[in-house]
């Protein structure tokens, strides 16, 4: 923790890097280039690892990706992210308790589309000109971000909290998208929940939130009804996007889940996998406008 906050070592893959090892994220293609992780102790600056996102896979999966700016899903997420962003950077000035740019994406049960929405949201915000995004995989038991994005992940959040010897640059992943960094979940740990509830986690969260005022931090989390982690994460985050799977998630589940994450004051509902129904306000009409 003490290693953070110094100006020497950056943790977001920003341009400040005077190591000869890699160049910042710029292009597509190629597999991940491994950074010299176990750097020589006398190395003054450590750089985060660089990974390349599999955009084809993303596109195939129908997700927001860099080259489909005008797809339906992209439009939908454009609408969705706006309130979050506004809230994030509106409160930041006033609310000192919880930084507003901390967002958790969760749902009641697995399969509702948390990772899908978290990734999409991150990708969508990464397209913003003035913002940067850190996507943190909070689903310690079943980390799914790496597989979705086609990247390899090793150490991550839990390791960062559990192991004092690690710092951000050891775990953070830079991507080929300039504004986007990814923090994987890390190795599974028996006391994951306790770690995430610890002071260290709190300090970490505080730090990453305040470090860059134009950064959004998005947590992907396990299902609320299947894990205790969301409840803990709710303590730290200022906004929660709660995914409701259309025609699947029952009202009772939602009620129960919301009760478990009630520590957070700003909970938004998001309807996922919605089918077109007569009379519903489909966005498609607008989407067709751009064609």
């Amino acid at each position: 923790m003490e290693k953070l906050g110094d100006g020497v070592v950056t943790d977001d893959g920003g341009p400040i890097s005077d190591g000869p090892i890699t160049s910042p994220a710029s292009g597509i293609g190629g597999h991940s280039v491994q950074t010299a992780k176990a750097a020589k102790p006398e190395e003054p600056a450590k750089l985060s690892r660089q990974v390349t996102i599999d955009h084809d896979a993303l596109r195939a999966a129908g997700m927001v990706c860099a080259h489909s700016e005008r797809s339906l899903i992209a439009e939908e997420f454009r609408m969705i992210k706006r309130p979050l962003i506004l809230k994030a950077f509106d409160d930041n000035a006033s609310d000192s308790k919880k930084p507003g740019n901390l967002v958790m994406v969760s749902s009641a049960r697995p399969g509702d589309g948390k990772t899908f929405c978290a990734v999409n949201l991150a990708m969508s915000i990464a397209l913003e000109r003035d913002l940067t995004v850190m996507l943190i995989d909070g689903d310690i038991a079943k980390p799914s971000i790496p597989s979705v994005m086609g990247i390899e992940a090793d150490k991550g959040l839990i390791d960062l909290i559990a192991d004092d010897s690690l710092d951000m640059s050891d775990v953070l992943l830079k991507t080929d998208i300039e504004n986007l960094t990814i923090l994987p979940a890390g190795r599974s740990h028996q006391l994951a929940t306790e770690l995430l509830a610890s002071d260290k986690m709190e300090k970490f969260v505080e730090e990453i939130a305040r470090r860059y005022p134009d950064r959004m931090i998005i947590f992907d989390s396990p299902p609320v009804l299947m894990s205790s982690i969301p409840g803990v994460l709710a303590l730290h985050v200022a906004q929660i996007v709660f995914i409701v799977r259309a025609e699947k998630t029952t009202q009772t589940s939602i009620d129960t889940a919301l009760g478990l994450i009630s520590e957070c004051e700003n909970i938004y509902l998001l309807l996922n996998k919605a089918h077109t129904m007569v009379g519903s306000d489909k966005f498609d009409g607008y989407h067709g406008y751009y064609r």
Partner: protein
Amino acid sequence: MNDVFVQIVSYIGGIWRRRWYVLAVAWIVCGAGWTAVASLPDRYESSARIYVDMDTMLGPLMKGIAVEMNLFQQIDIMRRTLLSRPNVEKIILMTDLDLTVKSDEDKERLIDEMSGKISVKQQGRNLFQISYEDVERGLTKRVVQAVMQIFVEGNLGASRKDMETTRRFLEGQIRSYERQLVEAETRLAKFKRQNMGLLPGEGNYYEHMQEMRRRQAETEAQISEGTMIRDELRAQLKDVPKFLEVAKDSAITQVGGGFGGPESDLNLRILELQQIIDSLLTRYTEQHPDVQSTKRQLAALQKQLEEENAMAAGPEGDNVDEPGPAAPGKTMVSNPVYEQIKLQLVQQEGVIAALKNRGEQARKAVEKWAGMAKLVPQVEAQLAQLNRDYQIVKKGYEEIRQRQESAKLASDLETKAQKVQFRIIDPPKLPVKPSGPNRPLMFAVVLLAGLAAGIAFSFLLSQVNTTFSSIQRLRATFTLPVLGRISAIISAREKRQSVRELIGFSLVGIFLLLACGGLIGIEIVGANNVLGTIKDLGIT
């Protein structure tokens, strides 16, 4: 309006999402229902048509009523007449149905059941159809035949029986009224007797009272009259001398001796003795012993007479009875006039006394009657009451008697009236084909019921655990802000799957309909025929 529409659409969506439940429940319900319908026993119906002249039937009942009854009433009458309790009992006996019931209440139930099951339908003004439906073929024919028989026997006399009952009832009533009438009469008579003088009308109290007073007044008048007469007589008596001077031998003495009282007797005897002496002297001399004894007697009598006169003169103050010294050669005799008046006076006194007595009685009577004055209104009222009661009983009695007469008349008419005209047009036949139950219809109904149950079940499920398919619903249910919706991305594989599922669903649904159609078809064609055809197909 739009909200309602959206709501309905969401309900339909909810049911559609659980469509497999719909089919599952429908299949279960239909399976059970169709089995039940198929296992229903066939029912057979036997019927007969008869011609009944409604006029002859309705005639006695419609006496005096000008309004023509409508058809419903007619058929109702027909039913009631035909299916009266005794008739139904007879039917049960004739068809041996009474063997199936043991207890009395079972019998009652059977009677009620039969009354309801035997159907009487009107097909024209005088045309009726009697039918009976049952599981047992033979029974249906027997029942209808039994009904025919009842008609034939002309035993429609339920009304006659009623007549009998009515008559007996009336007779009983009459007897009771007669009793009451007699009692009332007796009471009235007794009362009248007891209060004779106080009753209103002739010889009423006031008349009596007047009579009493009159009598009293009369008596008083009589008394005063009598007293006046007595006084008059007394006055007269004063003026009339008591004794008269008459010659000794005068007729008056002889006569007057008659009413002189004891003095006159003595005078008579003295005279007689003087006469005897005179006659003796003519034959004998004065020295004769007879003459001397007679003279001695005479002397004694004269002495006695003197004594009496002296005594009479003593107590009485006035000198009326005292004759006083008589002139020589003359005797004092009582004055007959005086005697007469005195007699009258005495008589009059007697009369007055009697009158006074009567007067006393009359006065007492008047008193008594005056005392009864206050009873008069009471008695009047009581009498009125008793009269009234009597009148009421009498009236009731008369009414009953009238009714009895009319009942008798009616029953006479009935027996004299012609029997109900009746003819069998179609006799009952043994049914060959079943008349029910209407299985095709039932199959279809079961199908609909099954589908309805399925839909209801799905709907219930959708309501019990609501899911959300639109953000409106989310907004409506939760207070939290809704960011928006993300459209589902359906992969090609998923699309294929959903198409397959839809096809499968439709097939199952169509199969359900076909099953129903098949059952209906079998039913219409006849199960036996189908089985036979299958057998043939199997063999060949």
